[in-house]
C-alpha cells in the first residue's frame, strides 16, 4: 500500500486516481462510522459523499500528525455528528441498569446459559447471538456504537479513537466500559426473553 504522504501529494498535484486510492483504503472505516451513526438509510449516500468531498477540499490542511485514515474518520465522525444534531437525533447512551435488578436477573441467567453445549448447539447459539447482538448494538446510542465499532471491529487504539471523536482518552475508556456493560446486560436479558 502506498504511504499517506505520497498519496496526498499526488492528489494535491491534481491526480484524482490517487484520491480514488485514498477512498478505497478508507471506505471500510467510513462505512462503519456512517452505518453506525446514521439511522436513516437514505441519508447515508449523501453523507458518505459529503465526507469525501470535505476530505478533498481540506486535504491541503492535513499536517501528517496522525494517520490519514484517522483524519478521514474524524471528518466522517464530525459530519455524522452534525447531521444528528441537525436532525435532533442525539440522545444519551442507553442507561445502564445500576439499580441491581439487572444484576439479579443476570444471576438467574447464568444457570440457563452456562450449561455445556455440544458443537451443533454452539453453532446455532452463535447464529442466534449474532442476530441478537446486531439488534442490541443498534439500540445503543450513536457514540457508544461508534466506540464499540472502532475498538472491537476496526481495532483502533484508545488514543486514535480519542482523536476521531475528540474525546479525552480517559473518557473513551470509561464510555467503552459502560457501552460493553450495557451491551452485555441487554444481550443477556434479550437472550433470556427469547429463551422463555
Amino acid at each position, binding site marked *: 500500500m502506498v504511504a499517506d504522504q505520497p498519496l496526498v501529494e499526488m492528489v494535491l498535484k491534481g491526480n*484524482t486516481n490517487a484520491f480514488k486510492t485514498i477512498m478505497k483504503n478508507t471506505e471500510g472505516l467510513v462505512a462503519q462510522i456512517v*452505518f453506525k451513526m446514521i439511522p436513516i438509510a437514505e441519508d447515508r449516500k449523501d453523507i*458518505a459523499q459529503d465526507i*469525501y468531498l470535505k476530505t478533498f477540499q481540506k486535504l491541503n490542511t492535513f499536517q501528517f500528525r496522525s494517520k490519514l485514515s484517522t483524519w478521514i474518520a474524524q471528518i466522517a465522525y464530525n459530519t455524522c455528528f452534525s447531521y444528528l444534531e441537525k436532525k435532533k437525533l442525539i440522545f444519551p447512551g442507553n442507561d445502564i441498569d445500576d439499580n441491581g435488578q439487572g444484576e439479579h436477573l443476570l444471576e438467574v441467567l447464568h444457570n440457563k446459559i452456562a450449561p455445556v453445549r455440544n458443537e451443533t448447539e454452539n453453532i446455532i447459539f452463535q447464529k442466534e*447471538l449474532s442476530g441478537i*447482538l446486531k439488534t442490541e448494538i443498534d439500540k445503543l446510542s450513536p457514540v457508544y456504537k461508534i466506540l*464499540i465499532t472502532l475498538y472491537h471491529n476496526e481495532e483502533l487504539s484508545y488514543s486514535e479513537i480519542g482523536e476521531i471523536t475528540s474525546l479525552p482518552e480517559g473518557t473513551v475508556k470509561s464510555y467503552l*466500559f459502560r457501552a460493553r456493560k450495557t451491551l452485555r446486560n441487554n444481550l*443477556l436479558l434479550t437472550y433470556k426473553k427469547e429463551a422463555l
Partner: protein
Amino acid sequence: MKYLHLTDEQIQQYVLEKATCTDEIIEHIQACTHCKERVEEYNLLFRSIQQQEKPVFDFDLADLVLQQLPKPQSQPFSEMWSSLLIIFISTLFCCVIGYLFGKNLVILFGGISPVFMGLIITTVISIFVFLYIDMNKSYHAKMKALNF
C-alpha cells in the same frame, strides 16, 4: 483471596488487558466459578462483535465522488494572460489619451497648486483602495458561501 466478586471493570480489564491485571484479580478469577463465567460471557461478546458482518455501501462511492471533484483546469494560466491583456490595454489607453490631449491637460491642471493636486490624487487613491478592499471582502464571502 477476595471473597467479593470482581467488578465489571475488573472483568473487562482481565479479558482485554490481562497483562495489566494484578495477581489478586488473576487468582480470584482462577478460583471463582461465577467470575470465570462472566469472563467467558465477555469473551463470547467480544468474539461475536468481531465476527459481525462489516457494512458496505451498496453504490460506487468513489465513482460518485470523483464525478463531483473539480476538474484540473489551466484556469490560473488563462487568468494570468487576461490580467496582462487588461493591463496592456489600460496602459495603451492612457498613452493615447496623453498623446492626444496631453497639451490640454497641462493647461487644465497647470493652474492648480501642488497641494491641491496632492489632495486630489490622495483622495482618488484612497477611494480605489477602499473599493478594492470591499470587493475583495465580498469575493471571499461569496467563495466561503459556495464551499461545502
